[in-house]
């Protein structure tokens, strides 16, 4: 809770820093603040408190997820030194927006009331609409922002309708009360059912599950790369935590309604995301499709919904987030080095930039779920969770899609390790930028090899 307040204030402080023309230096402020927030979270660890008339619920789940998002945001902000080196004017504003989005994310992992859920989603989304369109002079960015906004607003309508219907069915917005009401039996199950499904749809849109995923590739591609990285990590993490909170907590007993739908959607997401990615020629867009498929894996945990599901989602989020940060950081580097992000352009890159090649290999192998990277343990944990709930078939689908997925990840690596290739631009990346890559890559390996602490954190 304190972290939430601190970050809200931090966002405003960064805005002020922008006013005082601190530009990129405001990152220091933001990162320091985030470290503080992380510290606050650590101090609160183990407590299980409801705040403000049970509006928000900071338990270990919320603390863990919010800490993850804080760290992720911090790393992404550090990339800003390099990414915004040429347009520093509004960079502080953008950093502030990221922090605000983070506030929304934290609301989303800690809500105990549907109003907070709704506001949280919007606080998360609205800065992102702006961030997506923040490269004003580029039509692609505009288009991304507009598409994201229109579709986001549209699905917000559905989500809201869902919330309203749940309210009509149960008479309350409080999660605990909803849980009670549902287990006591509601008068009108039809309304509840539609409500739940609509809320589910809203969440599925946020996590970009098929067939609600259409925005994702376009928006990811059009947005500034840093923002894409932010979207891919924070939004996904927050939305899944939020989804889990609601469905594991409140709607679990109404499983019959949403289970089949989710099953099919999971399968579709896994397959469509990975299959579509096969044909991509741009790495950024490829990562967009990859992030769709990763949503599919995480949905396995929602389907399983047993005691380990929270841990599985959390661990997956960690693994996915660090790998994705690294991937987008590398993508930024590639675009700077080659001027484009097509697969062809990275041909032979690893020969010229061996460390970058190594980083990309580790990252992509992790995303592909190859041991000993973090992505593997994460995927394994999910599979295990699912199989424990007898979800063999969906796991088989997941396995097949993993195989398909491995193809495009490995193709990128293979491309990079080609013998021939063009020269690269001269470019210096700041220490911050490189250390983020280093941290993410090291994290990917370390988390993969020694996952115990993180695995058991939510037990």
């Amino acid at each position, binding site marked *: 809770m304190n972290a939430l307040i601190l970050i809200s204030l931090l966002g405003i402080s960064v805005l002020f820093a922008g006013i005082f023309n601190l530009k990129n230096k405001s990152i220091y402020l933001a990162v320091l603040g985030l470290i503080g927030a992380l510290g606050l979270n650590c101090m609160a660890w183990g407590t299980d408190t409801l705040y403000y008339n049970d509006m928000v619920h900071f338990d270990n789940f919320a603390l863990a997820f919010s800490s993850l998002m804080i760290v992720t945001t911090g790393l992404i902000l550090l990339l800003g030194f390099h990414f915004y080196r040429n347009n520093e004017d509004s960079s502080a504003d953008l950093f502030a927006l990221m922090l605000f989005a983070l506030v929304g994310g934290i609301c989303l992992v800690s809500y105990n009331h549907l109003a907070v859920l709704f506001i949280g989603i919007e606080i998360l989304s609205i800065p992102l609409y702006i961030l997506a369109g923040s490269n004003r002079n580029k039509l692609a960015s505009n288009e991304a922002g507009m598409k994201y906004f229109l579709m986001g607003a549209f699905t917000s309508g559905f989500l809201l309708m869902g919330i309203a219907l749940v309210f009509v069915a149960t008479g309350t917005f409080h999660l605990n009360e909803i849980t009670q009401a549902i287990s006591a039996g509601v008068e009108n199950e039809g309304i509840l059912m539609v409500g739940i499904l609509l809320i589910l*749809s809203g969440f599925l849109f946020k996590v970009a599950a098929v*067939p609600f995923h259409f925005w994702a590739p376009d928006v990811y591609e059009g947005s500034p790369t840093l923002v894409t990285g932010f979207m891919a990590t924070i939004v996904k993490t927050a939305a899944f935590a939020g989804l889990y909170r609601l469905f594991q907590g409140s709607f679990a007993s109404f499983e019959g309604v949403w289970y089949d739908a989710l099953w099919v959607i999971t399968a579709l997401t896994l397959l469509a995301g990975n*299959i579509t990615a096969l044909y991509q020629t741009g790495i950024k867009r490829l990562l967009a499709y990859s992030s769709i498929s990763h949503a599919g894996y995480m949905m396995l945990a929602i389907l399983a919904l047993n005691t380990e599901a929270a841990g599985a989602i959390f661990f997956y989020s960690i693994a996915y987030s660090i790998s994705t940060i690294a991937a987008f950081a590398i993508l930024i580097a590639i675009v700077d080095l080659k001027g484009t992000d097509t697969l062809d352009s990275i041909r032979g890159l690893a020969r010229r930039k061996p460390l970058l090649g190594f980083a990309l290999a580790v990252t992509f192998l992790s995303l592909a779920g190859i041991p000993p990277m973090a992505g593997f343990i994460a995927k394994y944990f999910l599979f295990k969770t699912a199989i424990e709930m007898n979800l063999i078939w969906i796991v088989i689908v997941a396995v097949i899609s993993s195989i398909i997925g491995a193809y495009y990840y490995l193709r990128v690596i293979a491309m990079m390790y080609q013998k021939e290739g063009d020269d690269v631009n001269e470019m210096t990346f700041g220490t911050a930028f490189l250390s983020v890559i280093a941290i993410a890559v090291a994290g990917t390996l370390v988390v993969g090899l020694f996952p115990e602490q993180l695995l058991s954190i939510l037990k």
Partner: protein
Amino acid sequence: MKDIVDQSAQFALSTILIPLLPLLGFTINAFFGKHLSKTLSGALATLSVAVSFILSLTIFFAAQNDGFSAFSVEVFEWITAGALRIPMEFYIDQLTVMFMLIITGVGSLIHLYSMGYMHDDEGHNRFFAYLNLFVFFMLLLVMGANYLITFIGWEGVGLCSYLLIGFWYKNQEYNNAAKKAFIMNRIGDLGFLLGMFLIFQNFGSLTFTEVFSKAGNYDLNDGMIVAITLLLFVGATGKSAQLPLFTWLPDAMAGPTPVSALIHAATMVTAGIYLVVRSNILFSLAPDTQHVILIVGLATAIFGAIIGLRQNDIKKVLAYSTVSQLGYMFIALGLGAYSAAFFHVMTHAFFKALLFLGAGSVIHAMSGEQDIRRMGGLWKYIKVTGITFIIGTIAISGIPPLAGFFSKDEILANAFAHSPLIWGLAVGGSMLTAFYMFRLFFLTFCGEFRGTEEQKHHLHESPATITIPLIVLAVLSIIGGFAGVPEVLGGSHWLNRFLAPVFADNEILSHSAHHLDHNLEIMLMCISVAAAVIMITIAYVVYVSKSVRPADDQHQPGGFAKLIANKFYVDELYNAIIVKPVMFLSNALYNFVEVYIIDGFVNLLGKGAVGGSRVLRLAQSGNIGFYFFAITISILVIILINTLS
């Protein structure tokens, strides 16, 4: 029992040394041969075999004693896998001793011969290395105490045969012949292997003594025994060049002549006979198999003889003769006359080795020429060779009192006891033998010299290293038969008595021993000798008096003669029905099944995924209106499904 222990202790060292010495010779020649002088390396090789021969002799003499009984010497544990325990163990009984004598005896003679014959060859030491290795494997084959050790030798001699046939590896024809020999042998080997597996399954062991002691539990013509023996026989057909696996042997003449003498006449090719004789208890239990053996043997004997009629390559004639003679041995085996078969092995080893070495001497004298159409009148140039050659020829033709007569006659007598028809066919075959052998002799040694002047100028008798073995073998060919003079001729048939312990446990055999009337037996001998003499006379008339010369390759006669000259087109037949289809299928499997079906399927999955990607991504049209529809309809469908269910 004490006796046995004593024997094995007494002979353990020599038993191990006998195969080891040639192996040592091989090792020295293989690794250090280049640094040795030619004579030294040849001498070493010869000596190693000769010492083995002497050691074998000591055992042989010991075996003459009544107190002698078969013994085993275990060297080390070789394979252990569950119930399968196969020691590297030697088993010495009378049969083995006899074979050892032949191998090392004839072997050392041929080594000696080779010292002269191969003197000018640059691969001298390599040759001796291979030859020694061969002797080692051959000894292993006959000395093994279980089927697997025999099999080692069996395949090992195949290897040496391969190496030696392809000794002059620059010539791809020779290499082809070597490869063919190896592969055809392997076909037989597979039969042997499978036979072994069945033996192991049924008897729980591969050791000869154990297997044979349990054989009594089986009925006559028990299916399993028939299967086992048939499979072993398949092995034997491969190694002993019987129908249908005989075509490698004539081709094997590509090797240096001593090789042909040692491997492809005297020893290796008789391995099949050894195997059957060794397993006589099993074979006797399977009359069905024996019939098969008889038929195959008979067919091979006649077939080989017919082909031999029109061959013009001196070694090819001998090769087909070998095929034919091996057929006789199998006839004997098919008749259950195991010791007769061995008897023929022995005499055949003498005279065929002699003939081959003689042929080698001829070729040596003719500077490498092998076509008898370009020879003639050599008698006066190479007398020793000529004399020894004619001895061999007479011996093989079955003229008494030379070796071939006794052994062949024993087979014929057994055949007659079984069925006069078989006897008739066998005699027919032996008439052909007499004819083509004398044809060979006459064409080579009589008449006018038909070679080039240069060859004529170069004609000379071979050195002593060559002639000495010839003489020794000639002597053996003359006296070898006396080892088995039948009772009817007043002999005591020493060989039969000597070998009797080998068949002692074979109850069926002791019951079915034939007894021909003595007069009848003598009459049969007369008939066969007379027939041979007639054929010799005809050959003399045709090739000496009328000086008929075989036609050149361009002027081949048609009809049956052409068929014979072309060896009944067996090679071509095999080529058409086996080699070509195998090659075709290999290509087809690869180009069609592998590429299009198996790999094609895998690639199709990949292509399918990529194709799916190509299609699916079109859904991502960039058109936001479509996205809205997709979302709305999805929600609609989700709710609808839930409502309906």
